[in-house]
């Protein structure tokens, strides 16, 4: 398994993720492996366009010749424990690209927007040295995704124009975790107004080394993605 993983065998990677997901502990080799993949977390309320944005993000990374692994976490039913894992359907144009690996995970009632063993799963992916960027899509729960803050190098919080519901989330700290804010669905009315409001709100914060930028995107049209990726890069440099 370890050798197959190291050789970039996708069947091994897929299997290893299942094992890690199901509580199989990692050997020291995997735990201690050093790899510089950028782990980008994407969070935001249900339906704001996280998966669509990731699809556009993949488009751009692939155009730049970068490989990308995506982990999409979907909510599970609290009663049956079952889950529909639907995020990857927004990324199906990459189905046959060997430079893109997409894996769907059920939250299995774990709170916090990710799944219990997400850190080990990321270690498994990093061990392959095959993926330049690792993107995490959290459950679109709106309030409880703060866990991603511990795990991702760069946290992107997605909002939509008007973001009325997200004001609730803000109280719960979702804005506090953002390294980058992005208003998706900017083709809808009110995007500029929302961006202005957000910027005004952010100005009330104490100054810091990284001023959280407010970007705009229309993920369905691949618009605003170059700027997003540049900003992620800039953030990476600024935190080094």
């Amino acid at each position: 398994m370890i050798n197959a993983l190291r050789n970039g065998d996708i069947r091994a990677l897929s299997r290893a993720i299942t094992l890690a997901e199901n509580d199989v502990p990692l050997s020291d080799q995997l735990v201690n492996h050093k790899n510089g993949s950028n782990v980008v977390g994407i969070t935001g309320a249900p339906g704001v366009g996280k998966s669509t944005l990731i699809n556009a993000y993949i488009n751009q990374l692939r155009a730049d010749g970068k490989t990308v692994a995506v982990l999409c976490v979907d909510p599970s039913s609290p009663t049956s424990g079952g889950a529909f894992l639907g995020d990857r359907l927004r990324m199906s144009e990459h189905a046959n690209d060997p430079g893109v690996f997409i894996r769907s995970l059920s939250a299995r009632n774990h709170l916090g927007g990710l799944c219990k063993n997400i850190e080990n799963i990321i270690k498994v992916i990093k061990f392959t040295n095959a993926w330049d960027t690792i993107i995490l899509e959290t459950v679109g729960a709106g309030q409880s995704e703060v866990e991603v803050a511990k795990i991702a190098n760069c946290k992107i919080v997605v909002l939509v124009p008007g973001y009325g519901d997200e004001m609730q989330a803000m109280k719960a700290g979702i804005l506090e975790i953002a390294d980058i804010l992005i208003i998706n669905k900017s083709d809808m009315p009110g995007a500029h107004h929302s961006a202005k409001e957000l910027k005004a709100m952010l100005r009330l914060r104490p100054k810091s080394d990284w001023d959280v930028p407010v970007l705009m995107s229309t993920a369905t049209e691949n618009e605003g993605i170059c700027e997003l990726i540049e900003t992620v890069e800039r953030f990476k440099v600024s935190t080094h």
Partner: protein
Amino acid sequence: MTNNNLKYPPRVLVTKIGLDGHDRGSRIVAAYLRDAGMEVIYTPPWQEINAVVNLALQEDIDVIGLSSLATDHLIAPDLMIALRDAGLDHIKVIVGGIVPANEHGMLEDAGISKIFEPGALREDIVESVATLAANARSSRRDFEEASL
């Protein structure tokens, strides 16, 4: 410990290959399976065989459910070959929908595990998928050791 000792929900792909676009049946079955505690990926119709194989590979799928209301099942054998070529012959494939009696033999010969006719009972579908998922895992011969 081997993989077979790991207990986790069946991972099922419910999909449609071919040209027919009626997806009511597959939606219903996907919901049955999810409500029975399974982890289900449901795709829209018209999937390419390669895309189905890659999805099953990346998602470590145990069972694929194909819905066929017209002639889609006639390309099911192509999917079986593609799965084998990708080293995924442990994955069990079932077909649900309208399959003329004289074509059942052809599907069984191609390695389809089970055919469900319209009117199949929810309990039967769920139980069959659960059993097949367990079989898929125990018939797996690659990476048998569950250690990392």
